[in-house]
């Protein structure tokens, strides 16, 4: 007989503490960020959230974080626009169509992408990928769509588009492997029922399988978005790192800056005790708020808007 004695309650206690430690870490970091950011919030007020100038030179200090907030949102959006369809394609192929012989190696290779350190993506982006982006993506875009403000500027390969493309590659393993699990978990009875009423394979996948798993797939996309929003090293190396008004992402072929890359660039050498340090911590706070909003928004969408079907994977 299994005894439900001390061992069980000790395990509960340990599990409870471990679960609580996540909360504690969040609380401590939130508190630290807030107190650290107070000087800049006092000095610049709402300008910190809506201003575009960023000047750490002593005597001229002004810090507006809007361009970097926009930079984060735009690069993450590009990452999702490019990365999610590819990831879904991989997931559908692997779970619905591929012969068993290729399924294992391909899914293994896709997951291997997640193990590549971000600095390697960044270096590869700067020294190799950048030139393909210039020749095959940016130059044609600039030639044919250059009249659009979104594609104005000189193709240089160190810009918002490059950063978005690198990010899209980086989110593929996360989104595709979770989506594949979700799709695989859709009960076969659903597929059989759909085929039996004469649906084609495309209709089965689109109307039944994806519909059935959509909240789970949505969750996978949100995880990918989380990675894109927080990614630092790879973005820093390819985004061009402009500052101030020049960093407002008005064109995809212009240098930009994300919140994470701004912190990575400036924090280390900022002099202690200056408003500049506080400004970087403030950007960190903003990044945390954005991440929270994304996650809460995603939860709301999953539970309210998408109306999970009975029996679907949660």
């Amino acid at each position, binding site marked *: 007989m299994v005894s439900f004695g001390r061992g069980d309650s000790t395990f*509960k206690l340990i599990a409870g503490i471990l679960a*609580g430690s996540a909360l504690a870490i969040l609380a401590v970091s939130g508190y630290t960020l807030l107190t650290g950011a107070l000087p800049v919030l006092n000095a610049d007020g709402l300008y910190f959230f809506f201003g575009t100038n960023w000047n750490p030179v002593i005597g*001229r200090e002004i810090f507006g974080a809007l361009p970097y907030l926009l930079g984060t949102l735009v690069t993450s959006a590009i990452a999702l626009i490019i990365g999610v369809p590819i990831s879904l394609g991989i997931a559908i192929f692997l779970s619905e169509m591929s012969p068993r012989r290729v399924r294992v190696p391909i899914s293994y290779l896709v997951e291997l992408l997640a193990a590549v350190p971000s600095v390697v993506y960044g270096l590869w982006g700067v020294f190799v990928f950048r030139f393909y982006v210039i020749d095959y993506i940016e130059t044609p875009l600039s030639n044919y769509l250059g009249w659009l403000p979104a594609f104005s500027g000189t193709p240089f390969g160190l810009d918002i588009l490059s950063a978005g493309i690198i990010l899209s590659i980086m989110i593929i393993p996360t989104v595709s492997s979770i989506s594949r699990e979700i799709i695989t978990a859709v009960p076969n009875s659903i597929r059989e029922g759909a085929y039996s009423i004469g649906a084609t394979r495309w209709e089965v996948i689109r109307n039944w399988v994806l519909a059935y798993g959509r909240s789970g797939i949505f969750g996978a996309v949100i995880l990918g978005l989380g990675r894109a929003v927080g990614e630092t090293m790879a973005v820093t*190396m390819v985004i061009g790192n402009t*500052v101030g008004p020049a960093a407002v992402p008005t064109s995809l072929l212009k240098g930009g800056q994300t919140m994470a*890359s701004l912190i990575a660039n400036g924090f280390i*050498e900022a002099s202690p005790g200056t408003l500049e340090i506080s400004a970087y911590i403030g950007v960190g706070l903003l990044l945390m708020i954005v991440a929270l909003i994304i996650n809460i928004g995603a939860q709301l969408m999953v539970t309210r808007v998408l109306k999970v079907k009975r029996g679907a994977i949660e």
Partner: protein
Amino acid sequence: MKFNRKAVSTSTAGLAIALVIVIAAAGAYIALNPATTQKVTTTSVSTAVSTSVSTSIVVSTVSSSSAQSESLAGAGSTFVFPLMSAWTVQYHNLFSNIQVNYQSIGSGGGIAAFEGHTVDFGASDAPLKGADITKTPNALTLPITIGAVTVAYNIPKIPNGILLTGSVVADIYLGKVTMWNDPEIVGLQTNATTAGNLPAKSILVVHRSDGSGTTFTFTGFLSADSSSWNSTIGQGKTVAWPVGLGAAGNEGVAGVVRGTQYTIGYVELAYAIQNKMTVAAIKNPSGSFVLPTLTTSAAAAQNIGALPTGLGDWSKVNLLNQPGATTYPIVTFVYLFVYKELNVNTGQTSGTSLAGSTALVQFFWWLDHTGQQTSSGLSYVPLPPNVVTINEQSLSSITYNGQTLTTH
């Protein structure tokens, strides 16, 4: 998958919550006391080091039986890191009982660690100034090497040494001069071939994206030579760049400039030499255009005239635009900071024993003399004799509990 709250008894939950609060409080306390955090980190690092290398090097600060073995800790400037690594290895080979650990956490972090007494010495590309001076009473400033900032470019068919002035470079970085064949640039060239080969192409401006002493020196030079730069941008480790792309680190800027045509960027002399980059000859105050070399950079420190003593205020010291026909104008010191009375470094090797403080002073004396021979091999500029003498006086004045130390 959901956590079943009912299953956990109230007492267990209460205990868990109490523990979480304790953890949170401890975390908050540590987070709110950076000095404590750093001390904790440093201690744990040195402990880890002492256990992991115990087979080859005996590192001990408490054991009296091995009083000769000392482990010194320094932190700061990333610029000096390659040279400092070479120095620490060489020094350890000479004196196997001395181990120097240098962490290149950035000049700002180095000054913070020095202020918090969590290291034996700090290193920075910029001197102590303002509040940092008041926070570090009796701190000695020792210029330990010299760095030069070069203006590098990549234009096809244009060799090394186009002629540029500070105000033209400022105009390029302000976005006022946008083409390589702008009259402002062409007009400076004395070589007709170079002038004729300057292309009708846009200048692609590259700057550092990370905060750095290199940027501090470069923008200081632009501020000195261009009133419009001084009034709109100014000097800083990071500034509000109006144009251009940012790349991380000297190697990042060097990489972008070398890999892309029609670019201009600024890199430390060492990177320009190692990467065989084409660099501009910059006009100095005596009106001549000088290429950056170890010799022309050293000239800046030789010609500077009166320098403060080690205890003096170095915040006004500036190696930019020094006199002399062959003096390169964009030059800076790299500084080490150490306390005149070492017993303030409580918990550090130099602050806990006479042997520890002597080890620090002797290491610095070696850096000031023999160590300078290493500099030129790594494309750092060796100190001229006048600076070596100032450092000698500073080092001789260092005490531990009021006792003067054997410097060499």
